[in-house]
């Protein structure tokens, strides 16, 4: 990721950014498997509320910081798209999440706060990756299929990025309104 000359300050930044991330995840209650899984039984919508408010904040912030000349968006790493393997990956990930109750980041928070299930999820993740690596010869064809390069929704939809950003933000507000209604119904 980074040249070895600049490795130490960069690793210190990584630890600091991670520290704030873990602190915030724990504050929201996302170190708890039962809170996380509540999302999928519509009993607790913290996952949706935290994930999409974070996503929209970063999306709007990146757009306006770029406009203001404070962030060169062109230099930020955008994950490349591989349509079919990412759809397969998403399906496996969502199914696994329901068994595990924690995702990779939150499993660390769970483990660090004394939840043994978090440790088991962490061990499971390493096992899964070892299995994937050892079967890589036969999985590689699917893994490397449908490469679309660095592709964004505005490119795909042939819309200006400002329009897509407004649409995503609007959809998130509708989701939040639906979440509030759902939680209000549960309380009454």
């Amino acid at each position, binding site marked *: 990721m980074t040249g070895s000359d600049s490795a130490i300050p960069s690793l210190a930044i990584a630890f600091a950014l991670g520290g704030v991330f873990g602190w915030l995840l724990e504050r929201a209650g996302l170190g708890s498997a039962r809170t996380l899984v509540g999302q999928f039984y519509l009993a607790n919508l913290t996952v949706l509320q935290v994930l999409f408010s974070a996503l929209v904040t970063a999306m709007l912030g990146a757009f306006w910081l770029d406009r203001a000349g404070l962030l060169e968006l062109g230099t930020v790493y955008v994950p490349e798209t591989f349509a079919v393997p990412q759809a397969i990956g998403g399906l496996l990930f969502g199914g696994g999440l329901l*068994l595990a109750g924690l995702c990779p980041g939150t499993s660390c928070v769970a483990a660090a706060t004394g*939840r043994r299930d978090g440790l088991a999820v962490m061990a499971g993740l390493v096992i899964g990756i070892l299995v994937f690596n050892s079967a890589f010869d036969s999985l590689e064809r699917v893994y490397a299929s449908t490469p679309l390069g660095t592709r964004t929704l505005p490119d795909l939809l042939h819309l200006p990025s400002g329009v897509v950003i407004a649409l995503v933000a609007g959809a998130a507000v509708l989701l939040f309104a639906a979440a509030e209604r759902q939680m209000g119904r549960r309380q009454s």
Partner: protein
Amino acid sequence: MRRHADPYLTGIGIGCLLLAAYVLAGQGLGASGAFASVAAALTAAAIGTAKAAASPAVAPYLPEGVTSPLRDWLVWELAGVAAGGFVSAWRAGRLTWTAERGPRVSPTTRTVAALAGGAVMGIGAKFARGCTSGQALSGGALLSVGSWIFIVTAFAAAYLCAPLARRLWL
């Protein structure tokens, strides 16, 4: 034990943190990559670095042999996540020693499900090239098409599996 923070305010905080990561590190946050780094180091320790690095799936994680995780950005970030989570729970009186599970399952069932679920997620995160942090959050905010494919398919699969896993959680 203190109550949890407002989810929207926490989300806005995570969004600002993500912006700081874009500015300071030129990349977003991640988690599954750190596990891949540890898995590669374990493979190198077991069968030797040369043999491990012969696999194109493992080689990118071994730029400095078995000790690579010690210099890996995501490993340090995830160590920070654990430290930050610990401090937060400690300050709020939420540290505990337990295994969280549904009311109808034994601790053993919970451990087996957590291991199996973790393994399936690990395979999924490899195919997707990231997880909730690296794809859904960091890539989603930059409107990457693959990140949004991941968000939609992961939520869809979780909702479809939820009725099957009721016994585990409710």
